[in-house]
């Protein structure tokens, strides 16, 4: 079953606005990661937040993590048309020498020029 569940499933905004995407998960994690996927392409890693961190920034990206609520949010500020893509959260859990990333179903973001 999917570990991460993103919300909303689809988001349409005007260029220049901020986009907020949410992710909830069910079990303990070591870190949570956000990825971006352009249509028909592979995933590109955006940002990683460890379980002992609460907030992280990278350029126009801001991610928060609330382990008590088992949720995370990704904020893209001052959105651009080029930000149009699907965004996935993925939770990482390590067991011994193995690690597994479990992905949500993704959020489709459309930024109108």
């Amino acid at each position, binding site marked *: 079953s999917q570990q991460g569940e993103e919300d909303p499933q689809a988001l349409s905004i005007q260029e220049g606005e901020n986009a907020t995407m949410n992710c909830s998960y069910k079990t303990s994690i070591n*870190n949570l990661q956000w990825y971006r996927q352009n249509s028909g392409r592979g995933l590109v*890693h955006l940002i990683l937040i460890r379980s002992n961190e609460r907030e992280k920034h990278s350029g126009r990206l801001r991610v928060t993590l609330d382990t008590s609520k088992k949720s995370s949010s990704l904020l893209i500020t001052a959105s651009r048309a080029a930000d149009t893509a699907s965004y996935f959260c993925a939770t990482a859990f390590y067991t011994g020498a*193995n690690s597994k990333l479990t*992905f*949500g*179903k993704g959020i489709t973001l459309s930024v109108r020029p």
Partner: protein
Amino acid sequence: SQTIHQWPATLVQPVGSPLSLECTVEGTSNPNLYWYRQAAGRGLQLLFYSVGIGQISSEVPQNLSASRPQDRQFILSSKKLLLSDSGFYLCACGPRQGSAKDNSPLHFGNGTRLTVT
């Protein structure tokens, strides 16, 4: 930096035919390698992962198999394709992880779009 090559980019195969998708990695050694499948409108489902040559772990029972004949080569195969095998197949790599303190992202290839007809 790591580069992941996947081929072919698109593939149309009839039901019952064999399948071989190849993934090779550059710019790293001893990586963990992964095969994911993405069905239309859905997230990524982990199919197989490998922590070393000849070491394959299967996540879900299915019509597919994987092999790792070399450190930086990962192959996804099927003897007889089913319609349900259609999807977008992604190869990914990450550093060899032996500690729960390791926090590293995965690097993905550009995927293979497989249509079984």
